[in-house]
C-alpha cells in the first residue's frame, strides 16, 4: 500500500457524527416559507452577515432559510417551490470528515465563505443538495460567527410539545435503494434498520440510523416505474414528538393543517402536515422522551 494514501478502517462512527446541526431550505420566497415555519413553531433568531439567509429555531432544531440568489436558483427550477437544499451534520472534526468522504469518492461542494466567515466543508448529496460538516457546536457555534442575532428575540425558543429532529426523508429513483444504502453506510457509517422496525405513519422504503443514534434517514423509491420522475431529492424533515396527539393539537392551534384521509390520518404513531408552497411538509413521529 502506498504511503500517501490513508488507511481507512471501518469504524462504527467514522466521522464522529453527533446529530444534525441544521437543515436548510432554498427558496425564492423566504417570507412565505417563514410563515409556514413559524406556524410549525420555528422562530427567526438570526440573520447571516453577508447573504440573504435566515436562521429559524425551536428547541435544538435549527432550520436555515437560504434566499441567496445563487442558492435559491435551485428552488426556481422546482417551479418556485422551496427545496431542502442542505443538511449540516455535527462531527468531531469537519475538515477530516470532508477529507475522508472525498477520499472515498464524494464530490466536494464549493464554499461561498467571505472574509471573516467560517468555511464550512461540504460534499454533494442527492440532487443538488449539499451535506455540510460542522464541528463548532459545543463551546461556541457557527451561528455565533456568521450570523447576527435578531434584536429582541429569544435566541432559544422552546420547542412545541417537546419536539426535536427525528430524521430526513429522501426520495430516490427506482431500484436505487442498494446504491444509497451503500453511499450512507460507506461515507457516514449509517446502519440499515430491519424492515420490521418502523416508526410513524409513513413507513415505506429503507430506513437507516446514524451511528450516533441521533437521527434516522429514510430512502423512499417511487411506487412504480411510471411514478419515477427521475429526480432524487431530500423530501421532508421528520420531527420526533413524545406525545403526537398533543403536538398535533398544539400545532393545529397555531394554524397547521394535517393530512386527514382514510389512508393517512394523525394517530398516536405520527402525522403528516398538509404540504405548503407546493413542497413543504413535516412528518411527526412518536418517540418517547429520553
Amino acid at each position, binding site marked *: *500500500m*502506498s504511503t500517501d494514501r490513508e488507511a481507512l478502517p471501518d469504524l462504527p462512527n467514522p466521522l464522529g457524527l453527533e446529530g444534525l446541526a441544521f437543515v436548510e431550505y432554498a427558496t425564492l420566497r423566504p417570507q412565505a416559507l417563514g410563515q409556514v415555519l413559524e406556524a410549525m413553531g420555528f422562530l427567526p433568531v438570526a440573520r447571516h452577515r453577508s447573504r440573504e439567509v435566515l436562521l429559524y429555531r425551536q428547541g435544538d432544531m435549527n432550520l436555515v432559510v437560504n434566499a441567496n440568489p445563487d442558492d435559491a436558483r435551485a428552488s426556481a427550477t422546482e417551479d418556485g417551490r422551496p427545496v431542502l437544499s442542505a443538511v449540516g451534520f455535527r462531527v468531531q472534526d469537519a475538515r477530516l470528515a470532508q477529507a475522508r468522504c472525498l477520499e472515498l*469518492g464524494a464530490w466536494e461542494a464549493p464554499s461561498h465563505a467571505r472574509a471573516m466567515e467560517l468555511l464550512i466543508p461540504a460534499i454533494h448529496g442527492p440532487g443538488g443538495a449539499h451535506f455540510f460538516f460542522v464541528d463548532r457546536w459545543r463551546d461556541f457555534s457557527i451561528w455565533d460567527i456568521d450570523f447576527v442575532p435578531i434584536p429582541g428575540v429569544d435566541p432559544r425558543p422552546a420547542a412545541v410539545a417537546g419536539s426535536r429532529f427525528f430524521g430526513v426523508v429522501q426520495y430516490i429513483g427506482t431500484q436505487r435503494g442498494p446504491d*444509497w*444504502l451503500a453511499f450512507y453506510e*460507506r*461515507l457516514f457509517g449509517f446502519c440499515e434498520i430491519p424492515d420490521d422496525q418502523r416508526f410513524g405513519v409513513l413507513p415505506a422504503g429503507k430506513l437507516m440510523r446514524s451511528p450516533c443514534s441521533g437521527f434516522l434517514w429514510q430512502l423512499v423509491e417511487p411506487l412504480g416505474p411510471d411514478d419515477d420522475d427521475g429526480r432524487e431529492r431530500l423530501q421532508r424533515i421528520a420531527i420526533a414528538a413524545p406525545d403526537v396527539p398533543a403536538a398535533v393539537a398544539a400545532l393545529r392551534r397555531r394554524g397547521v393543517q394535517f393530512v386527514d384521509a382514510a389512508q393517512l390520518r394523525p394517530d398516536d404513531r405520527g402525522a403528516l402536515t398538509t404540504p405548503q408552497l407546493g413542497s413543504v411538509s413535516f412528518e411527526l413521529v412518536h418517540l418517547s422522551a429520553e
Partner: protein
Amino acid sequence: MDRRIAGFGMDTITLAGPLEARLAAMRAGGFDQVMLGARDIAGHPGGVPAAVAAVRASGLRPTGFQVLRDFEGLSGHLHAYKVDIAKGMLRMCQALGSPVLLACSSTSRHASQDLEAIARDLRKLATLALPLGIRIAYEGLSWGRTINEFTTAWEAVALADCPNLGIGLDSFHIFAAKTPIDALEEIDPRRIFLVQLSDFMWHETPTFEDRMTTARTFRVFPGEGVHSEALADLVLRLHALGYRGDYSFEVFNDDYQQLPLEMVVQRAQRSALWLAEDVLHLPRPLPGA
C-alpha cells in the same frame, strides 16, 4: 425501430462521419440504442452540448458511455489526476443520460498490481458515480497489465462490493485471451452491466501487441469472423444465466470507417438478426407490437 433486434445496439466508434449522420443511420437500420464514444461527443463541432442535443434528438437511447482508461491502482498526483478525468467523464455521461460508464482495466506500469488497491479505487469510482445515478462497468482489457481477463475483473469487482459497480464483458477480449467461458458461472449475472460483442478474423493473438492492433483496427461484427460458434455459445450462456441487459457491437474496423454508413449498418443489422433469431431464437414480436 425493428423490434426483432431490440436489445442490440451499435457503437458510434464503428461508423465514420458526423455524429448526427451516424445516429440517423443506426436509427434507419432499426436500432433503438447507441453506445457513445467520448471522442465522438467531445469532438462534435458544436461542443458537448450540441452532441448531447443530437443524441437526445436521435430517439436512440444511450446504452452506455466509454471509456475511462487506466483509472485504478495509481497513487499521489497520478491518482488525483485520474479522479479529475473520471469526474469529467461522469459529468458527460450524466449529461447524455447514459446509465453506464465503461471503465477498462489499467495498462499502466505506474499502477499498483495489488488487488486490494485496485478494488479500493474501483469502489471510489463507483461512489463518485453513485449520486449521478450512473453504474460503472469494469472491463478487463486483454492487454491489461494486471487485470486482463473477465475472471480477474470480476474478482476486483466482487472485492470492491458496490451495488453500482459491475463488469463489462467484451467478446473480443475473451477470445483474444482465450478465457474459458465456463468461468461465467462464477459471476452474478445481475452484476453484468454491459456486454460488448465483436469478432475478428484470426485464431491466434498471442501477444498484447497482436491483441491491441487487432482490437483497434480489424474487429468485425458477430457472425463475420472465425469465432462465430464461440460467440453464439457466449450469448447463449449469458442468456441461460439470466442476463437480459444490452448487447452492443464494439467493432473497431478501419475498412468500415471508409464505407457508406448504410452499408456498415446493414452488416450490423444482419449480425443482430443472426444473434436474435438464429442463436437466441428470441420470439418474433407480434405484428403491430
